[in-house]
């Protein structure tokens, strides 16, 4: 009886205290899929504006924009907002592992350069200022987890493979900013770094190996734990170039040329493809005069440079602007299997200055509207979405909308 009383008393105390202690970390199974350059996940589109991530409702109704944070009491203006970072976001990655309805979003940003010590704001050391912060936002729970700062400056892209978040950054103090790749274990928060004396940038993952491009233009691959680093292909560019490894295909810009575009110049590329599945494969030229390019499911989607002026428009608060386009609104696809290029759509009335993501038959891009523009409104497209099949496109988020969210 005495024991029973003690046990009941202990249980009572536990009952009073225990509920608050629940909510342990859940281990997520990411499978073997390579998640990269993603802003789409399932039906949802996440994109970053400054230091916040916004959610475009869903694919079937993409022009409804909401703050990704679902706390109705949050004003999304401070770091306590789950979908906000302490400084502008430099890279995001959206992943939807098997069995989840809503994705996880990884947000990368630089550390805020100051901190408060004893009520006073003091500047961080140069070393600390160069570090980056990675935050994991879970859209299913609306909660976020911030990892310990990583020794990477300006994270440019991220890729997730088997629970490891690979981060590609500009480098770090004392290393000459030659490019640096880190691997952050999203379960433990431990970060390791690739040791490459010429610096490295992440370009993809395929068949259980991670691919990087060194500061001398050599593509190297290694195991997911950065062991067994070996050269795969020498692009002979002498330095970094835009490059991707996707489904065993390496795409890289072999040469770049500055061409006149109105009062300034723009850079165009000769893009090559190498089939990494074939050890003896040589680089094949996909196209010359390429303005932007992005691989998807092994194929390459690209536009060709073509400068055009389409008249002028009067923009409220800015005066007259010349409407220009740097391509003719045409998208091409290089079929890696056949080795040929074809036109996806042509002259859609909008040009592409950057392609953020391609998925599920849609392209997320920024660019300019050069047809059917309205007087008083900027022709700049901050975030727009376009169907590969039909070329139909619409603007998701305009510059002047930010203040309303």
């Amino acid at each position, binding site marked *: 009886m005495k024991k029973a009383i003690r046990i009941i008393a202990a249980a*009572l105390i536990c009952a009073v205290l225990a*509920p608050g202690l629940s909510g342990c970390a859940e281990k997520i199974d990411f499978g073997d899929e390579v998640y990269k350059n993603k802003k789409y996940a399932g039906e949802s589109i996440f994109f970053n504006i400054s230091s916040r991530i916004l959610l475009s409702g869903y694919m079937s*109704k993409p022009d409804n924009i909401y703050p990704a944070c679902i706390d109705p009491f949050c004003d999304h203006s401070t770091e306590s907002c789950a979908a906000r970072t302490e400084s502008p976001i430099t890279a995001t990655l959206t992943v939807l592992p098997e069995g989840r309805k809503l994705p996880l979003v990884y947000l990368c940003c630089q550390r805020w350069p100051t901190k408060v010590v004893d009520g006073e704001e003091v500047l961080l050391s140069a070393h600390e200022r160069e570090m980056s912060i990675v935050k994991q936002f879970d859209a299913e729970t609306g909660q976020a987890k911030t990892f310990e700062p990583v020794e990477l400056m300006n994270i440019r892209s991220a890729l997730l493979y088997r629970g490891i978040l690979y981060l590609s950054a500009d480098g770090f103090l004392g290393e000459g900013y030659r490019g640096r790749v880190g691997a952050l274990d999203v379960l433990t928060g431990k970060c390791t770094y690739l040791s490459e004396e010429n610096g490295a940038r992440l370009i993809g993952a395929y068949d259980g190996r991670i691919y990087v491009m060194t500061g001398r233009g050599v593509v190297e691959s290694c195991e997911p734990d950065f062991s067994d680093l070996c050269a795969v292909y020498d692009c002979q560019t002498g330095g970094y170039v835009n490059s991707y490894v996707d489904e065993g295909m390496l795409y890289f810009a072999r040469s770049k040329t500055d061409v006149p575009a109105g009062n300034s110049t723009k850079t165009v590329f000769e893009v090559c493809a190498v089939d990494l599945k074939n050890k003896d494969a040589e680089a094949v030229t996909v196209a010359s005069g390429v303005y932007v390019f992005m691989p998807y499911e092994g194929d390459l989607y690209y536009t060709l440079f073509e400068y055009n002026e389409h008249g002028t428009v009067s923009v409220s608060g800015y005066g007259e602007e010349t409407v220009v386009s740097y391509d003719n609104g045409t998208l091409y696809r290089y079929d890696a299997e056949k080795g040929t290029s074809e036109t996806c759509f042509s002259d859609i009335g909008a040009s592409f200055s950057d392609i953020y993501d391609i998925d599920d038959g849609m392209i997320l891009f920024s660019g300019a509207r050069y047809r059917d523009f309205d007087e008083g409104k900027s022709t700049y497209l901050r975030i727009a979405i376009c169907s590969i099949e039909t070329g139909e496109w619409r603007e998701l988020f305009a510059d002047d909308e930010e203040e309303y969210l």
Partner: protein
Amino acid sequence: MKLLGYELKKLFGIKYLWVMLLLTTVLCTGLYYYLYIGDINFSEPYYDRESNAMTEDFFRRCENEPETIAQVRESYEAYVIEADRVSEEIRSTMTKDELVGFRVTDEMLAEHGVIYENKLGYVRKDGTVVPDKNFFEAYSLRGLTAESLIKHVDDIIYLTGGAMERFEAVGAEELPIYEYESHYNEVYSSLRSKLADKMRPAEPRGMENMFWYREFPLFAYAFLLLASGVIFLNERSVGLLPVIRTTRGGRARTAAAKLGALLTVAVLTVLCLTAAQLIVTYIKFGITFGDAPVQYMCRNCPYLLTINGYFICVTLLRILAAAVFSCVVALIASVTVSHIVTYISGALILGVNIVIGYSGNGTGLSALNLIDLGNDALLSKYDESLLFGHFVGTLALGMALLSLSLVLSGALLVAVGGRRSHIYAPSRIRKLIPAIRSKFASAAEKLARRRHSYPSSLFVWEVSRLMTPAAVFAAILLLALSVYSSVSRYTESTPPSLIKYEEYLNENWTGELTDERYAQFLKRYDELALLTKDNAHEELMSRYTRGEITFEEYIELLDSIESASDEIELLESILPQVEHLRALKAETGVTGWIFPDTHIMRLLNRDINFFLLIAVLIIFSRMYSPDYSKKSFEGDFAAILRTAKNGRRKNFVVRFSAAALTSLILAALFEAADLCLGIANTGNLADVLSAPVSSIELYGSLGSMTVGGFLALTAVLRTISYVPLALLCCSASFAVKKVPPTLFIVTMITLLPYVLVYMGFPKMMYVDFTAVLAGSKLLTRSAQFDVLGGSFTFTAALLVGFVLIAAAGTLYTLRKTGKD
């Protein structure tokens, strides 16, 4: 009822209990004043009774004499337009740099002929004129507030509705988060439909300050912890018990009566603390508009309550939480019948609840702790908790949990009290020994034998009386906590920047800063400064573009500039230390050392060991209380000793010697553990043991004392200083004869000044004896307080003061022992 009356009468008769309640009230209200009232700028409207009354008067005038007010407002608005125009003019003449932090003042406007004379005529009692703009702004806000609050609720409904729509679109209706959003939507939609009619222009003031005070329950619980001990542990001294014990109904009824008394104390405590808070708030702010919707104060509150209603609900919640805490503590007390176990368990329960409050990223579940349940956290916004895959309102869950805990603990308390052999048995702990012995046979057996065999040596007897199994258990538990705390402190991760700083310092500069090394330091600094001059990058780039260097050379030189920038930054961080060492040499002739102090400071600058303090307090505060809480027929010494003067004297000497020795051993154990862990985790300690401790700026006044010497001195201080503390506990125990007041008195003497210093009363450092217990703090404060011109006078004064208090207590005990 008669028994309850008797119990209450008995409680009201314990004067020190009410003195403790009074002191708790003063402390609680003092902290409230300090945190929420003391810093407020009373020159603004709404912030004190006087300006609040004026604002009220202005609103009345707006209704009674609208034309007059409209005229004044017109002229004020004309002034604002003119002032804006002139301000713009002034700003347009300034550069961007000059504009940073610049503000156009009334004086500047007056120079440009823009003057406004306050026409409303509100003057404070001290003669200062309250600007008209304050009243106009208040009036504008008054109308806007009601509108904005409704809009805020609308926003919540819109946001949750939007989120639900998104989840529906991706087929995620089965996710808990969808249920979460729909609950919010439902709750606030319901509120919105009722709230619209209730909102009206209002500006409630005063009361909100009360609800911000989230530390309130801590004071209530601290007092109730002591009170529960008084009610349930001091019973053995009551002569009526043998009579009550004879009937089973008597026992159960007595236990129920005690429970009733305890709940009365809980209610009284909360009401007393709340009343004091209310009085202070009223004196400072005045309290108005109690019938306005509470959303004026807590805009996220999902319940349709007036401010008065909200206040009543919060008070009821506080009472309920206090009652639960008291019952749980009383239950522990009645099961264990041990002051030590009760107080430690009570403190642990509070600690765990505080930790829960900070865990869970502010989710509803983390609000289910006695601290949040004891204030308005549950009412101020709608919180939900995920329970078995479903969301439940946290308030409902919290209330259910509190009620269930109250009923269960109350019933258990009565059941435990109703049993024949319980509560009033001599010592329940002793009964536990056979069970423990079966597992830990030899040690427990020896202990048990000693407890029952009355050793011939009085000294050994007194030591064993102090170190009961419960006390030993408590000491081991606290030692383990102390070790855990030390491990956390010494192995706390160092930021990469500091690791780099330490490595650089150890590789290049650690050692004595002789004149030669100082010259080397300056030379290196100049070299690096030359390499990293402002246009270094541009120069290098132009050399490369002119073809003077190759790309490889360019990269190599670029690297050297970057690493030089890195190194000069490190050198600059050492510069203040170097400057301090040069000043030290010039002023005292001591040649200091450069060394990284990040880790060493963790060891040198140690605060008081709270775990040791708690151990000493709870063990030695019991020194005399058993003499007065046990009857002679229950087998204690007191009755026998009381009969002979010499016996009492001898017993006094033995008791105080036992206390001194035990406390010394206890302190040595705690200190040794902490010191060993510190030394093991301080990498470069061996290299700098012979360095003068004054090399660190904080210890600049300590002359040529070495780091090793400083460590040894503080370790000795941290050990022996607990002897006077233990003696003080014994004296207090002798003076008041009961554990709770003894604990209270010694805690007040030691920890109250510590808390006051922490709260910003530096003068309390003169009586903060925890500095003696902390060791290094005593020495550093000497540098801060140049008492009578000597650098160690403060140290000596505080040390002597502390010893004198303990000695006075000892002498008092000695004198009274002879007469008792």
